[in-house]
């Protein structure tokens, strides 16, 4: 998927201070183009989740603002939530339906769509994540990977342009991680803009085009994934093994 030059998300001088006085994010400005695959990395408490919540309109900024597809989030929150789907770190607290089908239908129902359209979207989202066989299953009986895929399906059914995933690989075993990663890659290939946060950059290497490093609520590096990856140590994130080997043996694999 080749990213277009048109920005779908524009963040300008965004700052957020929590009610207890602590600074969440501080003067963040960035543009994300349609079709980009962006990884946001940083230590715990660096402001990744706070930034993501602003993209979806869950938080209101103290200063600055966010525009989604040219329209300010604060001017039309519903539109922003429809265009930017947010998948939370804890899938368990995101799943609200009593069955897999009901959970995926929750978003489209809130958009007041017709029953036929809701059914079409739910069926399509469930088949896209490979959960169509589990449509009548109770969500708490699903595995960790299936729950994460269900959370993604719930967002996909709202047909957003941008998918924001907060730590999508957290608490997943290897097979669960592979399922979720392949899902994300497929969505990117289908033309969706992907923004995800992770501590484990190994998994997104080769897929992501851009890497943003955050520290103490500010962006300290933003650029091509292959270039910025060498600076991840300064934000307390582990460098991918391939990069470490490259640093030891050189680019050609020689001492």
């Amino acid at each position, binding site marked *: 998927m080749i990213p277009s030059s048109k920005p779908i998300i524009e963040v300008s001088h965004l700052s957020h201070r929590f009610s207890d006085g602590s600074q969440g994010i501080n003067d963040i400005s960035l543009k994300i183009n349609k079709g980009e695959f962006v990884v946001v990395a940083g230590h715990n408490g660096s402001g990744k989740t706070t930034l993501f919540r602003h993209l979806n309109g869950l938080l209101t900024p103290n200063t600055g603002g966010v525009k989604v597809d040219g329209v300010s989030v604060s001017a039309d929150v519903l539109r922003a939530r429809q265009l930017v789907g947010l998948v*939370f770190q804890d899938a368990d*607290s995101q799943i*609200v339906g009593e069955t897999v089908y009901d959970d995926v239908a929750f978003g489209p*129902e*809130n958009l*007041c769509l017709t*029953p036929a359209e809701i059914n079409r979207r739910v069926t399509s989202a469930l088949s896209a994540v490979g959960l169509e066989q589990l449509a009548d299953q109770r969500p708490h009986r699903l595995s960790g990977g299936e729950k994460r895929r269900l959370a993604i399906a719930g967002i996909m059914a709202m047909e957003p342009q941008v998918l924001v995933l907060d730590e999508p690989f957290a608490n997943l075993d290897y097979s669960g991680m592979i399922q979720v990663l392949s899902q994300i890659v497929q969505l990117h290939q289908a033309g969706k803009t992907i923004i995800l946060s992770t501590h484990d950059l190994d998994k997104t290497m080769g897929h992501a085009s851009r890497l943003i490093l955050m520290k103490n609520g500010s962006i300290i590096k933003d650029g091509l994934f292959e270039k910025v990856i060498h600076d991840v140590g300064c934000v307390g994130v582990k460098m991918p093994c391939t990069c470490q080997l490259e640093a030891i043996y050189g680019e050609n694999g020689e001492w």
Partner: protein
Amino acid sequence: MVNGECRKGQKCYTVREHKLHCSILKTQSLTAQSISSGKMDVRFKMACMALLSIVVLRADATGLIFLSILCLVLRISVKFPIIEFIRHLRYLAFLLLIVFLTKALNVSFFSSDAGTLISIDQQGAVEGLLICWRLIILTFLGILWMITSSPSGIRTAIEWFCRPFPGLPGKQVATMMSLMVRFLPVIVEQARETVAAQQCRCIQNRKNPVYRTVKFSIPLLCRTLKTADRLADAMESRCYSPENSRPLALKSNRSDWLVLIGITGFCVLMISI
């Protein structure tokens, strides 16, 4: 077939009783077919269950026999395993035992005869048995209703029943109920985890139940409130608003009406006999 045996092997002694039995069996069979097909409108199912519950509370021994036959027919048609029902009933068994003992036993603290402080009251025992019987039938009907209705169907039906009442926020009530169904297993799981984590740190060595209760309930409450907070955010991010009107996908057909009329007739007969 007067003065003989009608279907299901019941003895009928007069024309009136024979007709009564036949009409009851016909109603039972029709209800069973509709419920077992799983296509019965949840609203009609709820109305039938409400009517039957009223009748169960008023029924005497004869009425309870007919209601038990209805339950048996429903059990067979729904293919609900009796072992599963007994498993569900084990939670209720203690309550039933207390109810029976409360009714059946006479305790006299100031008895002149020193040997008979506790005696069994025969009439009380019969009353206790009838109450237990009623409770078992009510539980059975409740379980049957739950297993033959989808949670979304129940939610939608509740929303529909709340609509005529202007002050009652039907959508919020239905959403609350569906969230309760969804999050009860999560809270139970969190409670289990909290207990296990505290056992790992030898909480069992503390004999004070108040201390143990406080140490268990406060972390669980905090976790539950945090989960509720995250849930509210997740719902908001998926455009949830109490003002949104959701389309109610409910559809009734002729057989639903027939079952409702049949059950109403059955209930009228039960009250009249």
